[in-house]
């Protein structure tokens, strides 16, 4: 087992990894930018290294800074968390060259699955259902028009190196294609440094379902069931739950087995998430693989009782997975709300000092956060300040529990998304489980109307 792990991240996920390391008796090294000097992950790591100024590009995204920090502290492994360098095949390669273990899949696997067009082909070959679309990147309008005609509109253009909605365009008629292609290419170039895009059939109002897997270096791969993440705003997940109300036990078993086979086909190791679209007739379509731990992994930890981060560390150290597929049992229902430091109506970020911070206890509540009273939320990074995860015997209990937990949460000094989460949790369609990825669009429009109505009445 590792003696010392460097955590190449900040915020709640850095603390989450520290928790796992402490339970395994492994020393930790925190890295931090000058803006995070007083952050809790620095306080609770055994060692800490300042790696650069506030700007991510010069600190948390700097491979040389992080590798040097690992070298000067003698860390024998790096946990990248999520975001930042977590899906950097380059970091994984440099680690390999420096004989420091990267806690994640092999560099070539990260590279393959990071290229969305190649990943699509590989997963198709491995037996996963994929959306009809271009076999590889589409560079000319002529090619785009031909493929789109074959697929039938609507189609979607996606960045090959993509993620998070950047470089994406939905096209509903041939006339829109030319302009959309150029915009998408430009956005992709700007966001990822690679302008390549590909085209897929577009599914209207799908659900977003993802399967969590874990693989070790002895050929074992297991799945831990699915999470539903359809409650999104601009491709940013706001609320996740598991199991999905839309997935039957039979689908779970069958698709889970297919995912495990596909992961084995690419010699997948460590934690990963296979994302799918589920259309309104019950068909799944492979979307992409995230080759890292997800923000929403606690949902799966609650319903399976498996500590995903500890398993990540164990398998990276060469140990076998501590359980088999047959040991994985699903228990109750879990929901996660991502509490963001932002205005719940305008979505403007709201960094600043938190003057009061308190979260209730009681059964079935988990709070992963780096926030505390009198802490500063810097403006430089992600706006997520806490993940509140609840568990109940069933979905109904979980919803009631999340509501009372949010109602009894005190965060003063900054604005948070909690009021928005409470609205979602009281929405009859959400309560009934009738929702797709378009839930928030519709909801935000409705909200706007209501607000306008109120203003009109007031005026």
């Amino acid at each position, binding site marked *: 087992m590792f003696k010392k792990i460097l955590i190449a991240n900040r915020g709640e996920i850095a603390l989450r990894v520290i928790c796992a390391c402490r339970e395994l008796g492994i020393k930790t090294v925190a890295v931090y930018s*000058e803006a995070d*000097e*007083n952050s809790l992950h*620095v*306080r609770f790591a055994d060692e*800490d*290294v*300042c*790696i*650069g*100024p506030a700007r991510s590009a010069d*600190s948390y995204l700097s*491979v*040389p*800074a992080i*590798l*040097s*920090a690992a*070298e*000067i*502290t003698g860390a024998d492994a790096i946990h990248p968390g999520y975001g930042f360098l977590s899906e950097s095949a380059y970091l994984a390669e*440099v680690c390999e060259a*420096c004989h420091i273990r990267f806690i994640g899949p092999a560099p070539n696997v990260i590279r393959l699955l990071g290229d969305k067009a190649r990943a699509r082909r590989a997963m198709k070959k491995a037996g996963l259902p994929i959306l009809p679309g271009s076999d590889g990147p589409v560079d000319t309008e002529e090619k785009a028009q031909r493929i789109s005609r074959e697929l039938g509109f609507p189609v979607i253009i996606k960045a090959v190196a993509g993620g998070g909605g950047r470089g994406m365009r939905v096209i509903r008629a041939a006339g829109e294609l030319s302009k959309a292609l150029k915009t998408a290419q430009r956005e992709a170039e700007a966001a990822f440094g690679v302008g390549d895009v590909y085209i897929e059939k577009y599914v209207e109002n799908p659900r977003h379902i993802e399967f969590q897997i874990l693989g070790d270096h002895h050929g074992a791969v297991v799945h831990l069931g699915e999470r539903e993440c359809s409650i999104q705003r601009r491709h940013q997940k706001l609320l996740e739950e598991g199991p999905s109300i839309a997935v039957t036990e039979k689908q779970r078993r069958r698709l889970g087995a297919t995912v495990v086979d596909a992961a084995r086909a690419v010699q997948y190791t460590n934690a990963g998430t296979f994302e799918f679209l589920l259309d309104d007739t019950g068909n799944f379509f492979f979307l992409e693989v995230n080759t890292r731990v997800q923000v929403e992994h606690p949902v799966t930890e609650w319903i399976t009782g498996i500590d995903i981060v500890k398993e990540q560390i164990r398998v990276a150290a060469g140990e076998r997975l501590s359980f088999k597929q047959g040991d994985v049992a699903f228990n109750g229902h879990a929901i996660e709300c991502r509490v963001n430091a932002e205005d719940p109506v305008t979505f403007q970020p709201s960094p600043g*000092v938190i*003057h009061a911070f308190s979260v209730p206890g009681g059964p079935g509540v988990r709070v992963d956060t780096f926030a505390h009273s*009198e802490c*500063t939320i810097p403006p430089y990074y992600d706006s997520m300040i806490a993940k509140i995860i609840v568990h109940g015997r069933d979905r109904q209990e979980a919803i009631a529990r999340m509501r009372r937990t949010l109602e009894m949460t005190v965060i003063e*000094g900054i604005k948070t998304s909690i009021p928005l989460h409470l609205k979602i949790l009281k929405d009859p369609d959400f309560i009934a489980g009738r929702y797709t990825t378009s839930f928030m669009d519709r909801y935000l429009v409705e909200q706007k109307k209501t607000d306008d109505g109120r203003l009109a009445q007031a005026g």
Partner: protein
Amino acid sequence: MEFDDIEKILTLVREHELAEFELERDGLKLKVKKAHAPSTTHMMAPPMTAVHFQPSAAALGLPAHPAPATESGEELELAVVKSPIVGTFYRSPEPGASSFVEIGQRVKKDQVLCIIEAMKLMNEITSEFDGEIVSAYVENGKPVQYGERLFAIRTS
């Protein structure tokens, strides 16, 4: 901030004969203004005092980078060279060789002061000033963090 702290601050304000004192910190603002000193003929104008309030990082048990050294009351200035990267500090180009610079030595702008090894690469750190090396903060072969002090140079 406790009552005791306020009392101490007010004592300081008096001792230093301040006219005004303001302190602003996360969630706290304290402002004090003295009653005007009597306008007697023997002008005893209060000396100017600048109050530097060091934040509470240390009190919280959190690491704090030392502030740059300043020496007031002298005609000269100290420039502190900080490490621009994380790595291992070397005073000489190779083991056994003599140091790039010694304390008391005069250096020119762009002269190499030391090497910091990061990812097997040797990064030369050069002086931004002409001046004299007055302090060397890091031992040969020791790790340095981003922003850590390496040398103090008396500029001229």
